[in-house]
């Protein structure tokens, strides 16, 4: 059977194509794609005491000759100073750990919601989404009060007698893990839930009918079939976390240096736009592979959709 709109009059069809495809394309082209070209261009410029604070990439010198200057200083700088490499590695590490944490907590939650009685599901899902509608910044801020050395967690633990003097949690990497897990958990749960509810429950019944115990049926049937959901959720967490700024800035300390924060500092504190651009380019390059992976998974999910 053929899919898609039949023949309206050809003219109106062409107009509809032009509007529906053309307008979003132009907008995203100008305000999303084009900026990357400029970032690339400025990442090979030199900082200057000027407005804007970088040298021009090309210059018309007399006789209409075009002079192009490409300056790899920024990339060399990044290569030479260990702090950048450390920040990149730590960003990847934090993203990896947090993705696993989100998966560890998010999978059972998504599974529990997906297998809950139908009338509960909407409410349970709503409760996952609800925090997302309140301010992200304020939710991160809430943890400052909890993780402080004089904060609620320490007071509580002291009161319990688990510890005899306050622990330093705020401004450590642990605080960053907690903050990211807290903020990104819904992004893991939602695609997993979408995937798990689509799973045909008779498959599990068939497996049990064929002699599979429930746990084993889960491992052999549910888990492999939820792979697209796992990958989609993981990428939704992993990719933005690599470039996260707010959480490491507010909860992290000197041991939790991340690229996003470094880029922010280079840009706002050091006013080194070209270096910040070079960092952005490298970060972008790093994220291409997981992004392509996610895109693929998205497409297979769309295609297998009933």
């Amino acid at each position: 059977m053929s899919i898609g709109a039949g023949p309206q009059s050809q003219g109106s069809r062409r107009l509809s194509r032009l509007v529906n495809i053309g307008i979003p394309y132009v907008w995203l082209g100008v305000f999303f794609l084009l900026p990357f070209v400029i970032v690339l261009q400025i990442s090979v410029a030199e900082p200057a005491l000027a407005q804007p604070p970088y040298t021009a990439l090309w210059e018309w010198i007399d006789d209409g000759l075009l002079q192009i200057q490409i300056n790899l200083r920024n990339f060399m700088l990044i290569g030479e100073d260990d702090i950048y490499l450390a920040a990149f590695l730590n960003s990847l590490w934090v993203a990896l750990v947090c993705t696993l944490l989100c998966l560890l907590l998010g999978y059972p939650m998504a599974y529990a919601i997906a297998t809950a009685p139908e009338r509960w599901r909407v409410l349970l899902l709503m409760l996952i989404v609800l925090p997302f509608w309140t301010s992200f910044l304020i939710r991160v801020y809430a943890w400052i009060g909890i993780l402080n050395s004089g904060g609620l967690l320490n007071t509580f633990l002291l009161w319990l007698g688990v510890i005899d003097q306050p622990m330093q949690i705020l401004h450590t990497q642990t605080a960053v893990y907690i903050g990211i897990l807290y903020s990104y958990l819904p992004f893991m749960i939602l695609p997993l839930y979408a995937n798990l509810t689509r799973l045909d429950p008779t498959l599990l019944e068939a497996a049990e009918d064929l002699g599979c115990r429930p746990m084993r049926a889960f491992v052999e049937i549910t888990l492999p079939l939820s792979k697209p959901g796992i990958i989609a959720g993981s990428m939704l967490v992993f990719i933005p976390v690599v470039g996260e700024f707010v959480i490491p800035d507010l909860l992290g300390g000197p041991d939790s240096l991340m690229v996003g924060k470094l880029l922010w500092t280079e840009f706002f504190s050091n006013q080194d736009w070209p270096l910040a651009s070079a960092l952005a380019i490298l970060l972008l390059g790093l994220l291409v592979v997981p992004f392509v992976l996610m895109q693929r998974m998205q497409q297979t999910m769309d295609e297998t959709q009933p």
Partner: protein
Amino acid sequence: MAVSNERRLLEPWQDPKAPPYLRIDRVTKTFGDLYAVDDVSLNIFKGEFFSLLGSSGCGKSTLLRLLAGFEYPTSGRIYIDGVDVTDVPPYARPVNMMFQSYALFPHMTVEQNVEFGLKQDRVAKKERQERVGEMLDLLKIMELRKRRPDQLSGGQRQRVALARSLARHPKLLLLDEPLGALDKRLRESTQFELVNLQERLGITFVTVTHDQEEAMTMSTRIAVMDAGQIMQVDTPTAIYEFPNCRLTAEFIGSVNLFEGKVMEREGDQVLIEARHGGILRMRSLHPHPLGTPVTVAIRPEKMRLSDGPAEDGVNRLSGVVEDIAYLGDVSIYRIRANGGQLVEMTLTNIQPRTEQALTWEQDVSVEWSPTSGVVLTE
């Protein structure tokens, strides 16, 4: 052959001078490499209840969508009432369609659904209400008019869909599996209702179905389709009694097929030597040259079954009862002929089953007369 005037009126396709109401002229529709509709020509006459019959993927739905205007033919033309509508968009065609899913607008009441088409035509409000009322009365759904589609049963939805597509008084009503979503009991009663409605309104109906029984009961004529082509167009009786190819014979009802070669012609009958042994004598007006491979098709209810073994002879096979399927009104017997061929036949259960003599493993013989079947060349 002399055709009486009355007959000509009832069967306009018999009259070479009758103008077709819907003319499909060498229409082809391809999707990539696939020929969904392959060089189809068809004339449908005013007031007909015409069915396109075939298994899924045979192109019948695409043909219907071409008539509605949702698809454009790759080549060929379509005329309705003498007007070329090939390039007319769906909203401007004098044609309406009842969708298989009914496609009732979920955000509108029954009344609003039926009114929708009239609103598009900018019919004045007063007339609109009258016509909606007429339609709701006609289909006996007046009391449902304030409900929304999700508050209706399957049968009620079907009526609303029908009312909606009839409200614009189309020249042609297209029905895509009109009874497909109903359960069996409802389907049978609705069949008759649909035919009555069509006769009362005089609107030409073209329906698509995969259900041969449905097509047989409702249609004036049936077109059997396969792989984008029309295999046979004829009245239900003719299609059942005189199929013109194996495919049609097998698609409609069950049939026993005997392959063989033409040996001799005697007047309007031919003698055929069957591949599995035995000689068949069948009536055929075709000028079959001697030696042509042919297939003889005989319906299971047109054979006679006799108890006890018999000699194989002309139009007679002996064998053993292999299987009996009791269906209540009839029983189906599968008989393994001595030549190895499986013959199926049906017998009306005139007597209670317990009193019937025939049982498994019993020796029997099967007979038929030269006019009980047809000789097919394909």
